[in-house]
Structures are given as C-alpha cells and as structure tokens.
C-alpha cells in the first residue's frame, strides 16, 4: 500500500521534521564551515544576486546548481560542498552587506505568520549593529544548506523553536560580521580595532573622529579571517532585539502583492487538482480518463501513487471541475468500517489496560491510591482537529531527468527537499526547494505528502512546471490530524483533603508513531508527555505530588496524526487543569489556592499564575453573572497561565468576555509580536474548544469545509490582555504554549458559573442551557 509520505530518503542524514523531538541538534555556527563556504560557486550562476530567490518569485532557470552530479551525495561529501554557492559580498552565511549600505539577513526558518522572520533578523541585527531601517531578509534554499555542510543549521519551523533554538548561532553570525567590519575599517586607518566604535552601520575611530560605513568596508571585511570567538551582548543592552519593532513583512500583506505558494506563476506552468481515496489506506481501483479528456483545457489525467488521481489542465478551475466529473472507483481498503464510535471504544479500553508506558513517576501512586482515604476520578477526551490553514496545501514542481525543483510553502525546507528527492527518483544533489510564503502552517506544512504528490505529477510531464492545489474539501479530509486521546485522572486524598497520589492515564494516538516511528524510544513517544515531564524545556509538570504516575496506552487508529499547533500540550493541559479544579471542588478549596499549594516548589509556574490572578482581580468576587477559570502549564520552553471570564445566557449561549494571559518566555525578542501570538493562540485554541472536531464515519473524515468544521469569528473573539514577563536566563517559544491554557481556562470558568463540568469537546456538542 502506498500512503502519502514525507519520510526521509536514505541518502540524507536524519532530519528533524517537526517538533517535540530533538532529532538533530542544529548545526552550530562554525568558522570551519565558513572556510568551505568561501569557495566560489562553480560557474557562478547563483552569485549574481541569485540568492534573492524565494523571497521574490523565482524562475526555474535560476539557481540551478550545476556540478552537483553523481550519485546520492551525503551533505559532508566534498562534491556537494564544492558546489556551494557563495556571493562575494557575504560576510558569513547569515549576513550580506552591500556597498549601498543595505543589509541582507538570512533566515533559515520559515515565516508562516508567527513573526520569526522579523524576530530572527532582530537578533542578527542587534549583534551586527547595523541600521535596522536598511535590513531585509532572504531564505537560503535547503539545497544550498546541504551543499554547505548545513551551515544554516535546521530549517525546521515548528515546536515554537525558531528563536529558542537558533538564537545563539544567529547572534554569533551578526557579532562575527560586526567584528570583521570594524577590523576592516581599523586596518584601513591603520589603528587598533579597539579604538573604534560602531552604531547603525557607521564605524567611528574614537580618537580621531574619523568615520566610515559598513558599505564602504564590506568588501575588505569579507576577505578577513573570521574571529573564532565572539562575545554576545547582555540582553539588557539590546536596542533592536527586545523592542516592539514592526514586522518586516507587513506591507505586502495589505495590498495583495505578497506571493503565497498558491499564487506562484511560472512560464508554461500547468495546474493540477487531486483526489485521494477518501478512506485513509485505500486505493484507486480504476478511473476513466477518456471521460474528461475532451473537456476544455485538460492536458492529462494521471495516477498519483496507487491512492490518488490528478487532472492537469491549463487552469486550476478547469482541472478541478474535470476531476469532479472524472469517474473513479475506489478500493476503500482495510479501514472502511472504522468510525468515531469504534475509535472511542478502543481508546476507552486503553484507560485501564496494562500495556501503558510510563512518562513520569514519583513514589508509588498505585499503592497510595489503594490506601487513600478518598479518591476523585474523572475521564476526559479530546477529538481529532484539522489544521485548516487558510491557504490550502499546494506545491509547484518541475521535473526533468536531470533536475527537480519545487516551489512550496513549507515549514521545513530540508524535509521538503528530502521528500522532493524521494518522489523525483533523483539524488538530493539534483533537487532543490524554493520556499514561498505560507498562508498558515500550524504544523501541517511540516509534513510533505502534498509536495510528494506535486513531484509525482510533474514527473509524468517532464519539463513542464505543474502547480498542484488541493481543494478545501481535499484539505479537510486528508489532513494530518491533532491526535485523538482519552484520559482518566485519579487523585488520592488524605483525611485533610491533601492530594497524596495522582494517576494520569492517557490512552490514544501517538504522533511520533505515525510520523517518524524510528524516533520512538523503546516504544515510548516522548511528545505524548509534553507539559508532564519531570523537567526539561518540553514541559515540566509543575505540581508536586509525592506519589505520581503519568502513563500512556498507545492506541493508533488509521487516521494519520500530525503536529497541530500546541501539539499534545493542548489536551494535556485540558486534562490536568480541569482535574485540578475538580479536586479543588471535591475538597472545597479555592482553585487558585490549591494550585498555589501544589506549585510551591515551581516558582516560574507560580509566577505566571499569580500574574493573571492579580490582573483579573481573583481576590475579589467575579461580577454577577460572570464565571472565572484558571489554567497554567509549561511547554515549548515557556511558562504560561490564563484566566477566562465567561457568561452564559438563559438560552445557553456562551460568551467569552475576557482573557488575561501571562507568558514567561525567558527572553522576549519582540513583545508586540508575542502579544500577537498570544492573541492568535486564543483564537486557535478556542476555535477547537468551541467548534473543532473531525469525526470518522466509514473510515473517512466527515467534515469537509468550514461549514462543518467552523472557526471562531470576530464576533466570538474575546478581549485578550497579554502579560509578557520574561524572567531571563532561558529561551522559550511563544507561538504555541498559550493555546494549551485557552480551553481549560474557559472550561473551568463555565464550571464556576454553571456547575456544569464539560469533559468532552467541542463545546458546541453540549447544552449550557439552565436545566
């Protein structure tokens, strides 16, 4: 059976796809690697401004890396390295200074709305001491990265790790360039570099008052040997980083000029529409190409693997309508009888099964529960979710027997390159991927089934660029879904109502088992335990319980899982934070007081919780008719908490009035963008909590558009007050962690107001009408 796959081709070192997993540590900034990078590109085709690719609309003739022939070439092989392209004005792989004083900052991670392009550029510019107004950005291609020994490190953009995992080496890139530029100026003046100062790209020789600029010395500076050790600024001295600077990419997003993957137009390009078997794991039995061959604009009807069919036409609309008219017979395969009910039964059995894998433990929870004076128990569940990016999946590919190029909105250029190589049948060195702007990612664009499809189609039309666009219906029914889980929480209490034991049993799907099973650790999916770990950046469980057991019964239905913004932290926070409130109620304690008691040894968890409690005014009763709920968790390296205020009308209509959210990401690179991410997190998290559920019938996903998988709209969006409180000393992410506290804060507020405890989402399936 062929299934959509973005698995890594064997001629590459293992690459991280999306996150939760430290599959590969990012390549650190290495002067040694830069020595390789200084070799000129063979034939020089890229050097002439060629690196300004993916940001403008690239053409297929451009940036064709010649001399990359031969068999599959590991990244470290000299053949690939020799083909590395380096423009002569490059200070190092992160920084290009041009004689007109403009500065190009390279960004390896993908911009998908989260602001990483601006944030990473701020970090480079801060150390570079350039004029921020003259800075722009560009993406290197993953092919260039491989050819240069992965000098840019990881391209993977997920897990809120753009800044938190590359801050060190991108800042060193900026600092190294600054040192070389100042040295070049000092050399010109024949003075010690220590006598020179620099600000906004202007270098001053302090004793004499002479000045010069980056643009004037960049050529000389580029010839210098880079220093091997550079000091980084103390964040308290930041002038560009840490500031509320405007995004670099806004202007093109207000006049229609921003080119997204879907908008790409290449000379001679055709368009493709695709239909995969509606049941995951099913196949195409037969299709009748002749029935649509004479329709206007239709060029070809092609199989894609054994599970999908595509129509290629001059326009996408003609391709799509021809596909709708194409008779296709399916073999629905082994999962055609699976339904939400059968999946739920399987997961329910896992709640008490003996085959669970332990994530965290302390003391002896089972024994302590057996002897507890009193027990509190609750069972929760969380459904499948679709990413539903506003821009549907799409990719453009051009294949010849010698070369395959792809233009795609991807969250991970390197994984996209691997998927290109696999689908093209060509060695990686003969492929490249040009990243285009993403109309949303949320994790979906870190898996590349759609990209492999585009290459497979293009391969059947050699030399012709083909743009594959999914319909919204295809996108909704062939996602990589937020995993489905159930959870049984059991607490043991002593005679005074103190929590002496806690058992958290998660039953359900593993993303890692579905996406890269080779990364399971003796059968354990570590991502399952986000926010529940004994320690570490991926989420330390803040509550101190002397007898603790958190375990997972892995149950993997046939629906393909994926990393969905917030990942497992989303449901883990719902389970833990709802249950803490249930324990508080059972023991007649204030939910804040109980949390404070259990978090006494977790000061950073406690600090964000206290911040939201203070801002909302927890010490005073909520206004009449308003319920308040709290939630806190740690994940993606950051500490977050929220308090929600809700009201419920007599007819049961829920209104989320106000959210206060606090986040401690260690360092805040751009506070106004952190606020945007936190606000957006509530829109995403509350969309899921209020409306989101992908259900399964006859083996297929039932929801096929926004009519059946609705999103939160303007009218439902609560006010969000964001407290950004970086405490320093660590680097956390901001794109995802706050999503996790959105739903439990609202669920706890509903309970506080109505006494109704909702344990299954979405809320639209429950009536809040007064009984």
């Amino acid at each position, binding site marked *: 059976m062929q299934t959509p796959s973005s698995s890594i081709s064997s001629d590459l070192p293992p690459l991280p796809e999306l996150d939760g997993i430290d599959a590969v540590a990012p390549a650190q900034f290495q002067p040694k690697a830069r020595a390789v990078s200084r070799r000129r590109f063979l034939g020089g085709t890229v050097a002439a401004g060629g690196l300004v690719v993916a940001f403008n609309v690239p053409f297929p003739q451009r940036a064709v890396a010649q001399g990359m022939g031969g068999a599959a070439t590991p990244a470290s092989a000299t053949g690939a390295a020799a083909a590395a392209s380096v423009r002569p004005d490059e200070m190092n792989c992160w920084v290009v200074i041009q004689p007109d004083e403009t500065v190009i900052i390279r960004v390896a991670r993908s911009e998908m709305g989260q602001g990483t392009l601006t944030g990473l550029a701020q970090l480079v510019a801060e150390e570079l001491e350039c004029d921020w107004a003259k800075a722009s950005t560009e993406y290197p291609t993953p092919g260039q990265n491989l050819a240069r020994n992965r000098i840019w490190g990881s391209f993977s953009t997920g897990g809120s790790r753009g800044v938190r995992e590359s801050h060190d080496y991108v800042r060193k890139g900026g600092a190294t360039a600054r040192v070389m530029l100042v040295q070049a100026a000092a050399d010109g003046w024949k003075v010690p570099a220590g006598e020179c100062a620099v600000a906004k790209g202007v270098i001053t020789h302090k004793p004499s008052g002479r000045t010069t600029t980056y643009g004037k010395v960049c050529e000389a500076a580029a010839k210098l040997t880079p220093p091997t050790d550079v000091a980084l600024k103390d964040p308290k001295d930041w002038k560009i980083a840490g500031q509320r600077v405007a995004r670099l990419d806004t202007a093109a*997003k207000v*006049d229609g000029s921003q080119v997204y993957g879907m908008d790409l137009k290449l000379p001679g390009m055709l368009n493709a529409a695709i239909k995969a078997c509606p049941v995951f794991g099913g196949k195409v039995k037969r299709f009748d190409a002749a029935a649509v061959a004479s329709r*206007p604009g239709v060029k070809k009807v092609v199989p894609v693997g054994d599970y999908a069919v595509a129509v290629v036409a001059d326009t996408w609309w003609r391709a799509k309508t021809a596909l709708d008219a194409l008779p296709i017979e399916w073999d629905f395969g082994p999962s055609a009888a699976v339904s939400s009910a059968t999946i739920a039964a399987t997961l329910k059995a896992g709640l008490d099964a003996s085959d669970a894998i332990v994530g965290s433990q302390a003391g002896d929870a089972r024994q302590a529960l057996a002897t507890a004076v009193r027990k509190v128990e609750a069972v929760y569940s969380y459904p499948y979710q679709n990413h539903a990016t506003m821009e549907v999946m799409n990719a453009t590919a051009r294949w010849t027997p010698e070369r395959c190029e792809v233009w795609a909105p991807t969250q991970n250029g390197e994984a996209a390159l691997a998927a290109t190589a696999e689908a093209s049948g060509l060695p990686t060195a003969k492929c490249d991927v040009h990243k285009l702007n993403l109309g949303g990612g949320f994790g979906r664009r870190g898996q590349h089934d759609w990209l492999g499809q585009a290459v497979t189609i293009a391969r059947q039309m050699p030399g012709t660029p083909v743009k594959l666009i999914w319909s919204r219906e295809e996108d909704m029914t062939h996602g990589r879904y937020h995993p489905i889980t159930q959870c049984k929480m059991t607490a043991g209490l002593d005679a005074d109502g103190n929590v002496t034991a806690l058992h958290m049993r998660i039953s359900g799907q593993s993303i890692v088992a579905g996406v890269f099973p080779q990364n399971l650790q003796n059968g354990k999916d570590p991502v399952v335990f986000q926010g529940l770990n004994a320690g570490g950046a991926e989420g330390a469980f803040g509550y101190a319980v002397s007898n603790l057991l958190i375990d997972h019964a892995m149950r993997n239905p046939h629906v393909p899982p994926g990393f969905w913004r917030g990942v497992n932290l989303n449901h883990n926070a719902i389970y833990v934070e709802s249950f803490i409130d249930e324990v508080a109620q059972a023991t007649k304690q204030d939910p804040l007081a109980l949390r404070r008691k259990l978090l006494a040894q977790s000061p950073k968890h406690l600090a964000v919780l206290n911040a939201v409690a203070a801002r909302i005014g927890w010490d005073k009763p909520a206004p009449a008719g308003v319920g308040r709920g709290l939630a806190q968790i740690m994940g993606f390296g950051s500490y977050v908490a929220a308090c929600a205020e809700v009201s419920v009308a007599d007819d049961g209509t829920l209104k989320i009035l106000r959210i206060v959210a606090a986040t401690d990401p260690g360092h805040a690179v751009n506070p106004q963008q952190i606020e945007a991410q936190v606000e*957006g997190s509530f829109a995403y998290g509350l969309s899921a909590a209020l409306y989101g559920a992908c259900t399964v019938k006859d083996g297929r996903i039932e929801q096929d558009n926004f009519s059946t998988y609705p999103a939160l709209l303007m009218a439902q969006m609560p006010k969000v007050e964001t407290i950004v409180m970086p405490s320093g000393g660590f680097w956390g992410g901001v794109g995802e962690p706050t999503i996790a506290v959105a739903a439990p804060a609202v669920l706890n507020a509903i309970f506080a107001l109505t006494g109704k405890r909702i344990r299954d989402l979405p809320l639209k399936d429950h009536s809040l009408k007064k009984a």
Partner: protein
Amino acid sequence: MASLNVNGAVRQFEAEPDTPLLWVLREQLGLTGTKYGCGIAACGACTVHIDGVPTRSCVRPVSTVGEGEKIVTIEGLAPKASHALQRSWVALDVPQCGFCQSGMIMAAAALLKAKPKPTDADIDEAMTNICRCGTYNRVRAAIKMAADGGPSRTA
C-alpha cells in the same frame, strides 16, 4: 471573449460561463491578491467589491457579472496602498500569515463606506471572514483607527 471592468479597466478573458469570478481574477487576469479559501462563501478570503457591494467571488459565476458592473479587488482598492484601512493595518501590524487579509480589508472597506463610524456590533456583523492566525482584535482596532482617519502622520 468576455470582458469585465476590474479596477477601472476593461479586461478581456476566456472562461466557461460558470467559472467563479475568483478564478477568472486569479488565473485569467493575474490578480492573485484575492484568495481561494473555501469555495463555498464561508471564509471570505475571496471578497471583492462589485459596484461597492462586498461579494464572495468564489461562488459568483463570472457570467452573472455584467460588463457595466465595476469590480474592485485588493490591488485596486487605493493607489499605493493608501486607503486609511491599509495604512492602519500597517500601523498596527495586523497581518500574521496574511492570507485572509485581502478579504478582511475589502470587507472592512465596504463596512466603512456604509457606516463610517461602525460600532463593535457593526464590526461583528460585517466582518465574518475567517482568520486562523487569530488577528481579529488587531483587525477591529485597525478598523476603528481607519474610521478615525487612519494613523497620524507623525506616528
């Protein structure tokens, strides 16, 4: 050959009569600022103005748009993105991924034309576009800023 009046110019194109206006704009006329999001008029990413009326172009057969009707897309809203909404959008850094923003701005422009000082309830009623990044609160703030004349020049 059929023709449409788009952004002040008469444009010729060839397409089947039932082709949605959206796809004629994007594929025949090269105006890709108007986006495909759902194809069922649910998300609003495809919003354009037809004689000033905000219209979801993904479900509007092109043959039903008369040659005399004036279509305005995001590209033609104002010269050099000078509409008060566009300036406010930039001032408040509204977009995240940006994909829905053309439709948001076109819907907001029609709202301001009908109601120059919209209330929150007016905004809720008129702005039914989906944004998955969650820019809603900044969209609301930018509409109010534009209603007040846009960002001050000194800002």
